[in-house]
């Protein structure tokens, strides 16, 4: 009986510190990577501005959230940010379409090589980053309200009698639910609608799509709109889950690119898979397993160290190492994407 409880405690520990955070962080990365992969598939360049686009969308959402909060509007147990999200999405679509008209369209008409687009996107990244920091400042912003937890550690312990608690935050639950719904909607759009099929055709074989009568301007416009929706939602969910700080969103670029490339860039299913691969690797490698071993091993074998493979300070190294390994061993990614 004691052994059973120990195993249950170890499982709860892993659920609480690896599975739940991994699923929610993985969903956030997946949504970000989906935007990157869509832009790569259609516009054929690596968009370095994607992290800061997420920051921009989140910033607008936060500003609207604060305004709503000041008016006394609330969603009860759910965060008010959900109400502000559509406004954030509309502003982000506007700025992305404007950026395309002002920056990328010029290079498209000149049939520039992908690396030119990539460098241009870095310029956009710096501009966007500057705008966000100018408006909202470089500091941490909190905008989460409503209920904090779906499952509280204390309640979990009380109801199960285990000594380890499981907690699931509202932001984590929301992240997973919204990510699933959004991905289903995106796939329905890409697989079933005329515009979605045109996008897939354009991504697969641009010349043949043009020969079939696909309008490239429309495909590009819809791609920016989808990327803006994905970026704003991913950014807002990340901000609710952790906190909002413009620089963090710039840093997210690495795990998001790693996710897109690991899964197979240009392949939407790959981006989702890659998001979870990167998130779980990061969480698993930086988690201190000491307590798990304490529950599972007899007292004499109890580990003296933290049993942590890497300090959390190095979590970005994990995505980087995975990225390098994938590029060396299987450059097309787990599911076959385009070779970069």
């Amino acid at each position, binding site marked *: 009986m004691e052994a059973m409880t120990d195993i249950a405690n170890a499982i709860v520990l892993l659920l609480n510190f690896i599975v739940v955070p991994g699923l929610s962080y993985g969903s956030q990365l997946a949504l970000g990577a989906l935007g990157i992969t869509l832009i790569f598939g259609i516009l054929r360049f690596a968009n370095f501005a994607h992290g800061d686009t997420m920051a921009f969308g989140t910033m607008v959402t936060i500003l609207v959230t604060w305004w709503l909060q000041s008016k006394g509007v609330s969603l009860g147990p759910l965060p008010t940010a959900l109400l502000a999200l559509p406004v954030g999405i509309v502003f982000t679509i506007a700025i992305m379409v404007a950026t395309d008209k002002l920056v990328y369209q010029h290079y498209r008409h000149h049939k520039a090589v992908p690396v030119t687009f990539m460098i241009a996107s870095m310029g956009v990244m710096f501009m966007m980053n500057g705008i966000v920091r100018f408006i909202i400042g470089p500091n941490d912003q909190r905008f989460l309200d409503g209920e904090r937890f779906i499952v509280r550690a204390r309640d979990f312990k009380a109801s199960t009698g285990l000594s380890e608690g499981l907690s699931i935050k509202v932001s984590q639950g929301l992240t997973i639910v919204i990510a699933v719904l959004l991905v289903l909607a995106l796939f329905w759009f890409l697989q079933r609608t*005329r515009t979605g*099929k*045109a996008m*897939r*055709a354009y*991504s*697969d*074989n641009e*010349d*043949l*799509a*043009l*020969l*079939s*009568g*696909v*309008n490239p301007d429309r495909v590009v416009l819809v791609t920016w709109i989808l990327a803006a929706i994905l970026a704003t939602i991913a950014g807002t969910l990340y901000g609710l889950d952790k906190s909002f700080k413009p620089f963090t969103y710039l840093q997210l670029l690495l795990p998001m690119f790693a996710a897109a490339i690991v899964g197979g860039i240009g392949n939407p299913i790959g981006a989702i898979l890659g998001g979870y691969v990167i998130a779980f690797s990061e969480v698993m490698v930086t988690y201190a397993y000491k307590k798990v071993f304490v529950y599972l091993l007899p007292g004499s074998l109890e580990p003296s160290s933290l049993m942590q493979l890497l300090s959390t300070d190095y979590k970005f190294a994990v995505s980087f190492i995975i990225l390098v390994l994938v590029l060396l061993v299987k450059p097309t990614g787990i599911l076959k994407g385009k070779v970069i």
Partner: protein
Amino acid sequence: MSFLVGSNMVGGYGGADILKGCTIGVDEGEIAVIVGPNGAGKSTAMKALLGMLDLTSGEVTFKGKDITHLTPQARIAEGIAFVPQTSNVFVSMTVYENLEMGAFLRHDDISQTVEQIYQLFPVLADKQHQLAGELSGGQRQQVAVARALMSQPSVLMLDEPTAGVSPIVMDELFDRILEVRNSGVAILMVEQNARQALNIADKGYVLVIGENRHTDTGEALLADPEVRRSFLGG
């Protein structure tokens, strides 16, 4: 006056002129074949009819209308379909989706056209839910031709449809092309397999360095000793 005709076309892809005043045309219910040695500008001549290069002189008319300055997209909307030599299917899409993309500019019910296509290429009916990228070379060529036919074009242009397929598949493809011709579609194709292609051709063009060398019926070209000696290997 041909149905689709490019007359005295001069032009290239920005560098030196590849076409030096050649004339190519095709009539309804007819197969016209362009043959000639490598680098003669066969494919270029066909692409010029589609508007994929800028002509410095000459004109292209379709159904009696001057289309010299229309974009390729506009010409496709007018009823010209083109099957490129390579990369001519959407490999990550199913056979059926390839057909749907061929009918992209249509807004009516396509199910009847799909049925006709499946009668013409029965193997595609069996493979309709398979990805085009998973098919064999010959089957892919069928998908490529089928995709082009989905727009119900009045002219079908084929750039070396039998490149890289086995002789048996080639014969079958030619049979299908004859069937398409019999349904009233004008067919213009560039072919490496000159002898077989001229066999089914109503009209043949022999191009040499961007100019017309011989123009006659397929039969007459096959019988012409000079054409045989120079271009058909005796």
